[in-house]
């Protein structure tokens, strides 16, 4: 009962407070603090640990990484203080002049050109099938999603087993088996990795598409059918435009994944043969941690992120203009 009374008293006070302090006498100090903190200061208390964490784990390393890429930074024995002189764009100059780096970015391009169209086409195909099918719907949904929930390390082990020299895929292909074999073939390794990543993530994208398809009003299809549109025509003129926002999202997520490719080349080939499956993330690990040049690695990281952002923006322009 007392709190109810409290509430009654406080509300008008707050109302005048928002109108401005000039009206009436000044608020007591506690009120003014509360006014400054907002209606529920508890929110501040609840958010502070999270915000502090974000600063320590995201903002500080972010700034540190950018700083590092403009300075001469190297590992020292613990406790030793050494100067890290500012070197301007020297790290970036070194990175851009390095043919290995260029090859790594080129490999990502190959990866994206295979992975993105494949994901969109297969995602649309399977999800529209799933949307229409009556039986076994749950089974299909679960099967497509299982690769997505399984660790890359585990699934890559099977892919190595299937695709290495004497693997079952080559046995099945017989005389058609590629020479040199998949993992050792410079022109096949990146496409193989692209197919693997498509296979692994497809289930997630199928679910995204499925949600969008289920939201397409039935009336649109009925109206199109009434106007004599066939299945293909209806797919092109009703379904595709309706799921365009999802396609845009799928392309964006694929581009982001492309920038992160690390585990696949690391476990399948170590970046070989001859850098044919090297990716920027793997290169960052090799240069930054194995070879002790974190400044160079940070510069690669910055270039990679800027490239990924540029491609994402371009793809958004492209996928949204079509509409």
């Amino acid at each position, binding site marked *: 009962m007392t709190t109810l009374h409290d509430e009654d008293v406080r509300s008008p006070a707050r109302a005048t407070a928002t109108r401005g302090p000039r009206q009436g006498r000044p608020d007591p100090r506690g009120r003014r603090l509360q006014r400054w903190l907002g209606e529920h200061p508890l*929110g501040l208390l609840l*958010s502070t640990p*999270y915000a502090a964490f974000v600063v320590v*784990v*995201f903002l500080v390393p972010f700034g540190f*990484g950018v700083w*590092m890429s403009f300075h001469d930074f190297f590992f020292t024995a613990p406790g030793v203080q050494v100067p890290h002189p500012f070197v301007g764009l020297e790290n970036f100059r070194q990175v851009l002049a390095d043919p290995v780096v260029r090859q790594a970015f080129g490999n990502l391009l190959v990866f994206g050109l295979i992975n993105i169209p494949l994901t969109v086409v297969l995602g649309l195909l399977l999800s529209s099938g799933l949307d229409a099918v009556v039986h076994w719907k749950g089974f299909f949904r679960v099967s497509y999603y299982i690769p997505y929930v399984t660790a890359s390390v*585990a699934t890559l082990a099977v892919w190595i087993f299937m695709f290495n020299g*004497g*693997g079952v895929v080559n046995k099945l292909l017989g005389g058609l088996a590629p020479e040199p074999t998949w993992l050792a073939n410079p022109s096949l390794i990146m496409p193989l990795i692209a197919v693997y990543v498509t296979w692994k993530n497809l289930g997630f994208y199928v679910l995204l598409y499925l949600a969008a398809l289920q939201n397409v009003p039935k009336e649109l299809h009925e109206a199109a059918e009434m106007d004599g549109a066939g299945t293909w025509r209806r797919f092109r003129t009703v379904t595709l435009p309706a799921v365009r926002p999802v396609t845009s999202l799928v392309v964006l997520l694929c581009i982001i994944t492309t920038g992160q490719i690390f585990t696949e080349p690391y476990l399948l080939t170590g970046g070989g043969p001859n850098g044919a499956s090297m990716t920027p993330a793997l290169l960052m690990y090799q240069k930054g941690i194995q070879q002790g040049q974190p400044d160079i690695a940070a510069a690669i990281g910055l270039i990679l992120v800027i490239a990924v952002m540029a491609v994402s923006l371009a793809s958004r322009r492209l996928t949204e203009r079509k509409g």
Partner: protein
Amino acid sequence: MAGTTSSPDALNKDRRVRHGERPGLRRTGRVLPALRFTVLVVGALLALVPFYYMIIGALQKERDTSVLGLLPLQRNLTLDNFAGVNESIDLLRSLLNSLIMTAGVVGCTLVFGLLVGYALSVLSFRGQGLVFALVLLVQAIPFQLLMIPLYVMVVRYFNLADNYLGMILPFAVNSVAVLIFRQYFLQIPRDVFDAARIDGASELRILRSIAVPLVRPAVLTAMLVTFIGPWNEFLWPFLVTKDATMQPLAVSLANFSQANSTFQANPMGAVLAGACVLAVPAVVLFLLFQRHFTSANLGSAIKG
């Protein structure tokens, strides 16, 4: 409206008859579902065959890559590979490490997600916009940019190499969970909270006795969405753990498969046995809770 719904069919039939298309349409009417079903079955087979082969490969006494080896042949079946991989990497220890890391990440994610999601949706306070901006920023900053500086900080400055804290740290703030909880809290009518306030409940009491019980389904969703990540994560724990007794299974298995352990009777089989051990917990949990992995849940995680 009711009158017009029957007419399209009639009209359609009329048109079909007029153009003499009826048999043709009939055929596509039967062919299309069959084709669709075939595509879906082929897709499911392609998705599942590697898993079948993972199990078969893990059970093979000798590596058999022939087409016949795809079948579970009695004379070539053994459980030795599991014992073999267990000799090289302590499976139980690695599983425990994976479990600790996953539990730590999921725990932090839930606590942060619940508190911040509640603060952002139910309360109003100074800096709220800034906190929400931070939540979105976490989504936006790509890990590649953080990988090297975070490694330098965690390993060199914080001395958290080969430490569970070091493994958990970068994943502890997960904005997906914040967005899931925010979404759930926004769906609860404000009156529920206002009524509690009028009844004299303190803000903390409201959070504990009203908000948390109301969003229990969101807790499950957030757990399911986040547990897969740390359980399967390879890159970060790989960077910060060099001590084999601290490595999660994904890392120790990857190192084992890279080491080409020739003393194993069937090295590939041993790797696949390890792969099964790594895959089974995630797949089983997914199968148990698969109806929670709906696009709606995933969608809320992405759209924010």
